């Protein structure tokens, strides 16, 4: 790319004539930016290269800074909603049901692990988003797609391809009703 406005020695060597056959100086800037001759097309001015490097680096720095700021100050916002998920008596011990939390989310899986104990996780396997199924007798969650296993008590991956824990849904039991109160981020 040539520098517009400056004396470029390559303008003198220019072979290709613009279609209107007027001088190079009378041509629009884009025509200089997209030359037809190989020599000019391959030519990179030092100033252009430096400009490119500086601007690209600056864009990367700004992007990183934005991510940092978002992580530091982006946590605030409305408190997660509290939604009823199931009645305690609705599920037998070892039973499970799916629900959405918050409204319109991907399916979540609620499992009754004991008379008063409930756990809930996102149903999507952290490997390739297949739905996981509970294997309560073994204390695990199973993803049949690639034979992945998660710990039922914590959601952590035990075996198979998944490397990240299932996002856990915080639960609260009030007056024989199970409420979902929040989503915990998946930990490695």
């Amino acid at each position, binding site marked *: 790319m040539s520098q517009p406005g400056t004396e470029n020695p390559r303008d003198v060597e220019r*072979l290709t004539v613009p279609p209107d056959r007027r001088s190079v100086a009378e041509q629009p800037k884009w025509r200089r930016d997209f030359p037809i001759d190989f020599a000019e097309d391959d030519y990179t001015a030092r100033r252009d290269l430096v400009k490119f490097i500086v601007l690209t680096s600056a864009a990367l720095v700004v992007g990183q800074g934005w991510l940092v700021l978002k992580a530091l100050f982006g946590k605030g916002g409305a408190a997660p909603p509290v939604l009823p998920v199931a009645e305690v008596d609705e599920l037998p011990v070892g039973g499970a049901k799916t629900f959405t939390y918050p409204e319109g989310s991907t399916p979540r899986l609620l499992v009754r692990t004991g008379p008063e104990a409930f756990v809930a996780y996102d149903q999507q396997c952290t490997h390739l988003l297949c739905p996981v199924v509970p294997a309560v007798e073994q204390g695990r969650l199973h993803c049949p797609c690639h034979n992945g296993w998660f710990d039922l008590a914590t959601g952590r991956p035990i075996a198979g391809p998944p490397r990240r824990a299932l996002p856990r849904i915080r639960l609260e039991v009030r007056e024989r009703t199970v409420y979902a109160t929040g989503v915990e981020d998946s930990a490695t």
Partner: protein
Amino acid sequence: MPALENLEFFIDPGRCIGCQACIQACTECDTHKGQSMIQLDYMDRAHSTQTLPVICMHCDSPTCAEVCPADAIKRTEDGVVQTARKPRCIACNNCVLACPFGVPKMNTRMALMMKCDMCYDRTSVGLKPMCASVCPSQALAFGTREEMAKLRPNARPVNTFQFGAQTLRTKVNLMVPRESPGETVDVTAAIYEPAIGHDLLKEVFGDGFQKGDA
């Protein structure tokens, strides 16, 4: 670069015998092996067997490159317009439609515009292009201007073409009769001119020859 300085390409339609040797030879070119970039045009097929091989004229203001939205068509420092750069070509066909000479060809299988590059691997080292090396009547000739003047006393090279408002000077020369007027071939005007060379056929076949056509 210096190899091409004195050597020039000359097309002489009057010498073309339609043998298609150039088309075959073109497929042997190492820059586009197996693909012929030459098209043999019939000038006036209803009345004449006259043919004309179409090769790239290598314009000083290449319309194909001007219309390329992907900036893919480039010209070497010795003035040869090359096949579209493969990493850039988007196979949009603009060049195929825009070229006033009808030269670029779209290779849809490769999604690449390919065109005559004057056998760049050969001419850049001083060899003749494939087509010129096989043409038996030298309708496609590659040599110096002096050679041509000596070998063809009745013809002279012309390399300026007028297409409406567009003027093109080409690297490849077209041989025209020496006594013909003008330095420019006005192609769009010539479309409306009556075809020449039918007088002889009229003598042979009589007036019915032209009437049957109209």
